[in-house]
């Protein structure tokens, strides 16, 4: 065991904990990336609304904020519930 490569140690650990836990962390990792995507979307909505001002700008900004909150909520759900 002492001379085993790190990757193999990790693989053994995951194999012993079962596929359920692997799926859980797979979902959590996906959600972390998605939260970053939601943050980028907020930044981009800022640029878009600055470029072109129209009556829907307020709604679009609110929706982008809600989208980020939903992503954070699901990240927490994935960590806690699974």
């Amino acid at each position, binding site marked *: 065991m002492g001379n085993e490569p790190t990757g193999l140690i990790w693989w053994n650990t995951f194999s012993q904990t079962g596929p*359920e836990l692997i*799926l*859980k962390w797979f*979902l959590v990792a*996906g*959600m972390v990336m*998605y939260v970053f*995507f*939601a943050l*980028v*979307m907020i930044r*981009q*909505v800022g*640029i*878009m609304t*600055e*470029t*072109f*001002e*129209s009556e*829907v700008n307020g709604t*679009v900004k609110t*929706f*982008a904020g809600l*989208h980020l909150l*939903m*992503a954070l909520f*699901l990240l927490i*759900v*994935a960590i806690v*519930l*699974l």
Partner: protein
Amino acid sequence: MAGEEKKPLPTKEAAPTGEKGQTGPDLKEAARKHIGEVLTRVGETPRKELGGAYTVYPEVSFIQEQKDEEVVLVLRAHPITNVKWLLVVIGALLLPEILIMLGALAEVPYKIIFVGRLVWYLMMLGYSFERFLTWYYSVFIITNERIIDVDFVNLLYRVMSYANLNHIEEPAMVSGGFIRSFFKYGDVVVPTAAEKSTIEANDVPYPDKVIRIISELSEDLEKRRERGE
């Protein structure tokens, strides 16, 4: 959808004399007068059609708008061009149900299916939102002075092109095929004297009316420049 929002065109009585040394509001009034005349000539009235894809004389503003500049026309791609991604989203929303019905997820624990479905639906919501934003904010703006093409290719990439109306050549339109003819949309190509030789609006409604308005505004600007206004 026709004639959703209307506002009265400026009257001749309200128009200023157009002499040199005009102030900001005077310039705006003069611009409104010229726009009113041009729109009357092409038989257009202020209106919003096809969910904002064709908006004549809207109350909007954009980045780097000049003091004496008034937006005459705002164009987006025809709403029918969104059908493709809408069908993809509808199919994707049905996918979890189909996989469950087929028993493909029978071995997966219930709580993982539950959270996985929520994540999937959120991703579809995010994708739809991103596509809507790209469609809504990719606009082709025609003012009494310039043509501005704003393209958001994706969330991280913005392209803005400007062309002065007195630096453009004869605009052209490209329309063909069953769907484009049926829904009356096509491409508008405006050659310019600048290094980037054309400025284009793709899949916009009523391209024939668009080139007529561009030509009239260009001609009007030319005459005003000749008069020294």
